[in-house]
């Protein structure tokens, strides 16, 4: 009996109900009362998904009642195990029915954007970079949710939100932007082997452009070629890098 399978229609339920052993009202009430704690415990496991605990407890409690009504002792299954599966199935169905999966990813994106504003505000208020705990408090989220939003929102970039800041370079100004100086560990790990495949001159030009931050004209003056030639070499080198990385990724 799958907890997340389709619920039987009312007609089916009414047909099948008399076939099961009848549970006396007093016994039924006792089973419900005895297992309300279980319903609460399971509801709490689904917190932090944007639904209030009271709603979750209500869903779990209704599911508990269903469990009692559907439970067939003659099958030799432990009631608590049966009820747990039913209640979790109903809680999951509750989130599915509310389009939670779509809202959840949107919620992460929204929280990420919200963190940018919260960081900016807290930097002004505190005169220093805020901690994750402070951001969580300000956005009304858990620390875990903040960490997840940072990871998801930054597309796996390794820039730390706790990185030290100064007034000229607030974190909020950097959130969501790309900056060659802060290219992620992941990107650099991916680039290093591909970079090594390039001729020495091309490697040098790429480093001068993206590591040292020189302009194409400055590079041209340094290595004694025209700026146009540097531009072509850069474009060809980047194309070559892409090809290496794509082939590595496919493998």
């Amino acid at each position: 009996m799958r907890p997340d399978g389709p619920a039987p229609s009312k007609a089916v339920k009414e047909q099948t109900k008399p076939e099961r052993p009848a549970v006396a009202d007093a016994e039924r009430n006792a089973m419900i009362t005895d297992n309300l704690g279980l319903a609460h415990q399971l509801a709490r496991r689904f917190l932090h998904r944007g639904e209030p605990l009271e709603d979750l407890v209500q869903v779990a409690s209704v599911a508990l009642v269903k469990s009692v009504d559907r439970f067939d002792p003659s099958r030799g299954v432990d009631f608590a195990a049966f009820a747990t599966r039913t209640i979790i199935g109903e809680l999951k169905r509750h989130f599915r029915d509310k389009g939670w999966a779509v809202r959840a990813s949107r919620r992460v994106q929204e929280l990420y954007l919200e963190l940018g504003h919260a960081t900016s505000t807290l930097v002004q208020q505190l005169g220093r970079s805020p901690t994750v705990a402070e951001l969580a408090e300000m956005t009304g989220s858990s620390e875990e949710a903040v960490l997840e939003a940072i990871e998801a929102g930054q597309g796996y970039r390794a820039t730390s939100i706790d990185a030290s800041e100064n007034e000229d370079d607030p974190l909020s100004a950097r959130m969501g932007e790309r900056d060659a100086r802060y290219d992620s560990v992941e990107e650099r790990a991916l680039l290093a082997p591909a970079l090594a495949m390039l001729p020495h001159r091309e490697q040098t030009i790429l480093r001068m452009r993206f590591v040292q931050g020189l302009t194409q004209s400055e590079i041209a003056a340094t290595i004694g070629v025209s700026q146009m030639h540097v531009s072509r070499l850069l474009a060809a080198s980047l194309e070559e890098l892409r090809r290496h990385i794509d082939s590595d990724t496919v493998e």
Partner: protein
Amino acid sequence: MIEESEVAGSSTLGDGDRVVLTFPARGDLVVLARLVASAISVRVGFDIEELEDLRLAVGELCLLALQGSDARHGDLRLEFTVSSASLDIAGTLVGAVPATARRSADGDEANELSEQILAALVDEHGREQEDGSVRAWLRKRRKGPLA
């Protein structure tokens, strides 16, 4: 430069990849297990509902691994193994001493609930004694072929 989406898209975990996480066996650090489980779920292509199931499940797995021992001095070692068919997670408590009888009895009820929750969230799960400590494991099957 490389586009962001290209970098993110290449961040997959493939058949045979293994991630090991070891941390002091404290309840307040189970968040680490959930965060790693989330990150791995994304990289093996689980959808967000499967990801949330796994986050819940790995929390229960940690509880199972912690029960039955005095974890104050131990570490919790989680091993995430990716295969073409599933993501397997095994949790073992390392360096702890057996719990007192009272704590073991308390733990039995918690274990039962955790196992019931795991049964509802993952495809397979189990718990066994291994080298004097508890090894709890779960398996969440992948719907599609390996990315």
